[in-house]
């Protein structure tokens, strides 16, 4: 058995039904190693986000095999999928923070998914994480009062606070200016390295390619390039 974090074999995915059915992913085979930053690239509609959401258990696998940390997720029940999702961290294109919760409370949601736990320990872990992403001074701010970069950093803190084994990021820099974008990705990379986290990121932002350990290029639902740096 391979030690890869993610193994994909013969993965097909379709959107729509009947006549309108359109294949988005074609016979995809892929292995992603642990502890590395892998970037998925490609033009719009190439299927990279679909692959990411399939691997992140946000979409039901239709055909083929997808193993996360050694477990098959094709055919997993809703309860099992919920269990898998708890082991993963997901950073979205939009920060997707809860507008009614403060920075601290948003990050706490990343911990409480594992159960109520000890409130004091959770708060300490949350504050530590927010300090790491440079928001020690903004712990009690509501997202509405923070800048785009700050919000995305909270989202990173929320995804990483429970020490997930795999982190998925869907164009995390899309809504950010160059400097904040670079900061967020550099932070992700550094945190991944120190925690031995596997990071898979979708982007078409050329500025951040230099930080990648591996770049996979997709087109029309197929892998057309695979470079290890």
């Amino acid at each position, binding site marked *: 058995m391979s030690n890869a974090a993610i193994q994909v074999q013969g993965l097909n995915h379709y959107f729509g039904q009947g006549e309108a059915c359109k294949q988005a992913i074609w016979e995809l085979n892929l292995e992603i190693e642990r502890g590395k930053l892998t970037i998925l690239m490609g033009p719009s509609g190439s299927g990279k986000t679909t692959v990411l959401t399939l691997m*992140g258990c*946000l*979409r039901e696998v239709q055909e083929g095999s997808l193993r996360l940390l050694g477990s098959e997720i094709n055919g997993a029940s809703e309860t099992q999928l*919920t269990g898998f*999702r708890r082991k993963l961290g997901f950073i979205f294109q939009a920060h997707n923070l*809860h507008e009614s*919760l403060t920075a601290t409370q948003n990050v*706490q949601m990343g911990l409480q998914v594992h159960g*109520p736990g000890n409130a004091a320990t959770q708060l300490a872990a949350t504050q530590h994480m927010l300090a790491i992403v440079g928001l020690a001074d903004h712990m009690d701010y509501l997202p509405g009062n923070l800048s785009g970069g700050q919000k995305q950093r909270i989202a990173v803190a929320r995804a990483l606070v429970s020490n997930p084994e795999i982190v998925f990021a869907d164009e995390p820099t899309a809504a950010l200016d160059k400097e904040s974008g670079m900061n967020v990705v550099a932070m992700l990379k550094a945190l991944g390295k120190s925690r031995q986290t596997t990071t898979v990121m979708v982007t078409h932002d050329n500025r951040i390619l230099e930080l990648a350990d591996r770049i996979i290029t997709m087109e029309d639902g197929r892998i057309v390039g695979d470079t290890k740096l």
Partner: protein
Amino acid sequence: MNKLLTRIFGRLPIGWLQLIHSKTRFIAAIAGVSFATLLVFMQLGILGALNNSVIAPYEFFEADILISAEDANTITDGSNVARARLFQSLSVPGVVDGAALYIGNMEFKLADGTSSTLQTFGIDTSKGDFLSPNIGQQLRLLRDENTALIDTAIRGVAPSVFEGLATGKPFSFEISDKTLTAVGVLELGGSFFTDGTLFVSDQTFLRFFGNRSSGAPNHILINVDDGISVDVVAARLRDALPASLVKVQTLAAATTADQTYQTTERPTGIIFGFGVLIGVIVGIVIVYQVLSTDVADHLHEYATFKAMGYGQSFFLGIVFEEAIVLAVFGFIPGLIVSLGLYIGMSAATGLPIEMDPQRIIMVFIGTLVACIISGAIATLRLVGADPADLF
């Protein structure tokens, strides 16, 4: 509040935080629930007033059994009962005493031109045992010809008109060109059918209602021996009297039957019953609308939570939390406004519109259940949806 809720739920009180995040929307949602509550309270209040006003006249009497004409559904309608039935009844074992009761409506006019309809009860002045203590004690005052006990709460008549009575100064007025003198008081007020009540002796009654005969009262009241069951005597009376002409009911059963008849067979009762039903339906629709809009507005955030690994029970928890907050916060102003409107409506109509604790509890539980069910339905769209499809 946050700390308290966090302790209760073992998690952040997201529902609560979500609701209070936008104050205007929170107030609008509460106003919606309050209005639903108010609607139900008003309809129940009117229906309750009908029930109360049907029961009220029965409460003047403390008889065990009421003998009425076979076709009588309420205290006033139906044929008369032959007084001979009273004498027949007295020979039935277990019957201690009986009294004939005459009922009619009189037009009461004041010098300023106001006119009210008074439900008038005529009874033998020696039969105080058949009446509630307050009336029973005053009955002997009616032995003088053309005297009456008058209702001090007649609809449309200021209570100050009867103030003199309390100091022993009789109050005389004209009815049907005859003078009637009030020598005592009672307090009932208006119902859906009449504006007030008058008690007179049977002799006075027959003098004022020239077309009525002493041989044909409206009802016969019966009291039974202490040692014997009322139901047993009622059964004996039924055997002794012709079932085709009279019906024998305990006073309690007659009250209930009248109430049932008024609320389920008379148009007024049916209309108010429909009012309650529609109030409840509109209330449920408002609550559902409030909660499902809230779920729709936060679908993004819920999808994110789902992607993070939160399960359906978590979302149900949030929505239930919101449902309970809305139910509690919406119920209180709804109740307060209803109480105010009850007082206003009661003053304007003279009807006995009152809040009773049972109704408060019932409506609160109803509000809570409606909120929770609406919340559960509103979260259904999250079940089984792929988080990726929700963004």
